[in-house]
């Protein structure tokens, strides 16, 4: 089990230009503390690459590659097999991509890389929109969210489609290891990253990264919002390994989604009817979760 006092003091991601309170700083720092200096990190176009690699200030102390938007999965393959061909074995190949760069434009490359079974860790940090370019919706934007290209207006309540389920997409690939995580649950995340070190092949972690700027909450509430997402059932922490799904946190009672939604400016326009819609969707997702992953445990 990870203990903070045993973690290295070295900061592998430092001095970056992310918004105050942004989860990506926590995610990048902690992932690299677990993986160590012999890590190559590939960053597609995203908040992460933009805030860390502006010549000449480089905020990663490990080698990094800023990558074309669509190709993270493929470049991870290239690095992984290149290292193998050169006989270099003790290097972590890490991809840190956003929700757009993973679930939208990057999905094909990710699918190909996972299908090929190459050795890498892919962390999708999900701030639920194309935040870097000004908060445009992605396929991981939740229902009802106000984004700059799915704005709420007199004729619309914002984003109409639910989040694509990347966790299940990875399970469908029968990936060696997949997990969901949250920057609000840092120890859970670090344990998962630690676990990937011992597994050969592709590993995928989908980590929720609350965004003060895009979601509309004060910069000190990042963890509170992240926890509310899990406590209201709008996000879950789970792992897939050896053909089985394990839920890491199952709230005893799932609180109403309204408690999560109303704390963020991007949802403040929602009417009672909209919220009911979102609640129904969340309930339906949890029915599926219970049927497939939880009920068997109780037999």
């Amino acid at each position, binding site marked *: 089990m990870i203990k903070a006092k045993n973690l290295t003091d070295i900061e592998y991601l430092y001095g970056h230009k992310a918004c105050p309170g942004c989860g990506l700083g926590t995610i990048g720092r902690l992932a690299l503390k677990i993986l160590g*200096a*012999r890590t*190559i990190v*590939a960053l597609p176009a995203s908040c992460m*690459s*933009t805030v*860390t*690699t*502006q*010549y000449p200030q*480089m905020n*990663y*102390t*490990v*080698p*990094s*590659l*800023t*990558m*074309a938007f*669509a*190709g993270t*999965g*493929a*470049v*991870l*393959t*290239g*690095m*992984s*097999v*290149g*290292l*193998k*061909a*050169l006989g*270099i074995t003790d*290097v972590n190949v890490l991809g840190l991509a956003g929700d757009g760069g993973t679930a939208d434009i990057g999905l*094909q*490359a990710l*699918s*190909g890389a996972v*299908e*090929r079974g190459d050795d890498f860790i892919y962390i999708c940090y999900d701030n639920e929109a194309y935040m870097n370019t000004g908060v445009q919706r992605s396929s991981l934007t939740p229902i009802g969210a106000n984004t700059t290209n799915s704005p709420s207006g007199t004729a619309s309540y914002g984003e109409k489609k639910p989040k694509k389920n990347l966790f299940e997409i990875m399970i469908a690939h029968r990936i060696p290891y997949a997990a969901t995580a949250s920057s609000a649950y840092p120890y859970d995340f670090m344990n998962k990253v630690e676990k990937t070190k011992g597994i050969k092949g592709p590993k995928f972690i989908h980590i929720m990264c609350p965004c003060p700027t895009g979601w509309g909450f004060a910069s000190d509430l990042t963890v509170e919002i992240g926890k509310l997402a899990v406590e209201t059932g709008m996000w879950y922490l789970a792992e897939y390994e050896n053909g089985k799904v394990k839920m890491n946190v199952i709230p005893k009672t799932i609180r109403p989604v309204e408690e999560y939604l109303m704390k963020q400016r991007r949802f403040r326009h929602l009417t009672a009817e909209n919220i009911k819609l979102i609640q129904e969707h969340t309930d339906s997702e949890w029915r599926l979760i219970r049927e497939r992953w939880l009920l068997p445990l109780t037999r």
Partner: protein
Amino acid sequence: MVNKSRSSRLDFINGDEAVAYGAKLCRPQVIAVYPITPQTIVVERLAEFVANGLMNCEYVYVESEHSAMCAAMGASLVGARAFTATSSQGLAYMHEMLHYVSGSRFPIVMMNANRTLAAPWNIFGDQRDSLAQRDTGWIQVYVENGQEALDMIIQAYALAENDRVYTPVMVNLDGFVNTHTFELVEIPDQHDVDEFLPPFRSKNAIDFTNPRSFCITAATEWNTEFRYQQQEAMNNAKKVIGEVDKKFGDQFGRYYGGLVEEYRCAGAEVVLVGMGSVVGTSRIVVDRLRDLGVEVGLVKLRFYRPFPVEYFKSLSTRVKAIGVIDRDLSFGYEGAVASDVKSALCSTEVVPKVINFIAGIAGRDITKENIEEMYNRLFNLIKGGDEKELQFIGLRWES
């Protein structure tokens, strides 16, 4: 000419196979290729080599051409020698990555089977695909036959990986005409190739003792300087191409002339400029016409980028008219090669007349008769006849 070759062997193979043998001899460490007609035989032959333990490399089943270039780049980034191949739609699909790889200075070698771009659909050969990638910062060479294809793959790595260059190289074969035509090709001995092309020791790769961030953002204040650096590398390539050609010739006995090869241009009044397989056909026409006392010549444009500006300027005082064969067309203007030839000539003292012949689109044959007709029209032009600047050869009807 010093031929230091040990035992090479002759084989009856097509252009794609020649490329596969060439790639095999270069000992790439990562091959990431996605199949597309008419490059598929390259993909298959390389896979067979790997499956039979004849190549020691990682063979990656990428799921698209864009990913093929991404994977090749990732491999080069960690210091591995990477190879890929594509054609037409695939080349277009990886367009973004072509810019990316050249801008980040990764010495990747790629074979391209020249095939027209949809729409309309057609799998046969013209040069629209690679010429549309003119500005991506890749060195581009166009081969005439299977032997040159094999040889240029090897030379491409020597060129790309040269310290003064570090620019990726695209080796172009005409689709079907080169790729699928069987010829006798001399396959060099592996030891000779090893001597010519040592293992890749990248100067632009990850080093944990000196960690760097790659493909970084260069703001407005610095971007131009990085581009200037790329241009300087291309200028250096002009010299290195000649050096590599000579070194290759010394080792294997085949010299190709570097950027450009002139065929019987001495005393020629008119010349044709061509790239790729059309050069082979044109040689025969030149010989025939010369036998009849007609003073024609042929310029084999081997490297499209870097463009041999200096050569064309020097040609301006020696010929009266130049016909440029373009197996492509930049709609709204003219063929890409003709444009570049004409712009090289525009600042010379004497400017020869130029006719741009659009021919060989989507696999349409450029016959010996077509080529002779082109020379006739060039003569008509210098005699004061009326010739349009842009002419479609073999078009069914004009408007």
